[in-house]
């Protein structure tokens, strides 16, 4: 995998970096918590894509298996955190009728 030359691995690694940027943008900008959870998942998959791309050793001999194993572990951990965040969000909506943390967006999420 040549560092500077434009080949698949570098392409995917840079895509991962831009995905992280997009995810960070979403995580900061949105007040609705479900969108922030979605942005969190985009950042996570961006980090993992970069991790795998940096471990890619040319066509034919595949990606370094250790990052692959760590990424599978990371995906399951990200799912667990997302599931808890979603459960907390639904409970917050049931208790206080809002889907945001008030400091950012005082308005209640009105019906769609």
């Amino acid at each position: 995998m040549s560092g500077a030359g434009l080949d698949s691995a570098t392409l995917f690694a840079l895509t991962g970096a831009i995905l992280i940027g997009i995810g960070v943008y979403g995580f900061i900008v949105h007040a609705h918590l479900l969108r922030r959870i979605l942005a969190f998942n985009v950042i996570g998959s961006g980090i993992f894509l970069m991790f795998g791309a940096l471990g890619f050793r040319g066509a034919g001999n595949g990606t370094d298996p250790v990052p692959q194993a760590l990424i599978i572990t990371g995906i399951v951990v990200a799912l667990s955190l997302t599931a808890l965040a979603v459960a907390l969000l639904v409970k917050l909506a049931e208790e206080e009728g809002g889907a945001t943390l008030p400091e950012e967006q005082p308005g209640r999420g009105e019906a769609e």
Partner: protein
Amino acid sequence: MTAALLFDAGLCLLVLVVAFSAVAGRGLFGAIAFFIIYGMLIALAWLRLEGVDVALAEAAIGAGLTGMLLIGAWSMLKQLGVSGLPGGPSVPLRIAAGAVSGLVALALAATVLALPDGREGLSPAVAESLGRSGVDNPVTAVLLNFRAYDTLLESVVLLIALIAVWSLTPRAVWGGVPGLAQHARSDGVLSMFGRLLPPLGLVVAIYLVWAGSSQPGGAFQAGTVLAAVWLLVVMAGLYDEPPASSRNLRLALVAGPGVFLAVGAVGAAFGVFMGIPEGFAKPLILSIEFALTVSIAVTLALLVAGRPRRPA
């Protein structure tokens, strides 16, 4: 080679467009629809990186279950009338966030490009010890032998996430049945779909676990497929979720991590914690994988179903 590079460039561009639409799109439901497509495209990217195990996990967990989780949450919020926000984010906030995220992306891209090439990572070390690990698939060898401790902690993370979701249950409904009371027309298309798919899903899941030792597959991917199929059966109104207080549900939840921890503890007794003896490594790893698949399937299904809502 240019065709492959062209395809990769096209795929990367599409991934970025879909990701941006998912994050910055107007409607929340549209964002979730884009996110599901995004998960599928990321799985294709992993195929291009020849990380088929990760592609499987991303397709099953990223596109499949996370999509169902978000749609379920959106549906619940819609019932409560909070599934959207009146105004979008203010312009100065957008500019600031754009600047910060641009900076982050640039810094990471620069660091990536500064990395020396010809890095081997740990693949030679894995290849060299693969023979003694008892399995042929290097990723499974890392997951269940070389770094088995990571996977043990991770299976506990999944289980504890479910307990954490259950800890949100109001006192009145404790021990009750998770999720809403699903109902569907008994001779309709949904219940037919709910009857036809599970056998196929079961075959695919068992195949994935069995193949996991020699080719891409394994407990997590298979467990996810089983969980998705069970959720369909419940949504089709054929069966209801088990109550949280049911005894054998708890046994199924604890089976996977329990077997894994038992193997680790036995190893510790012989002086090598989590040590899997070379002699019968393969049967031991396969038994751990099957136990893990059962627990992961049950845990994931209940995790997506949410906290108990109806009395048992």
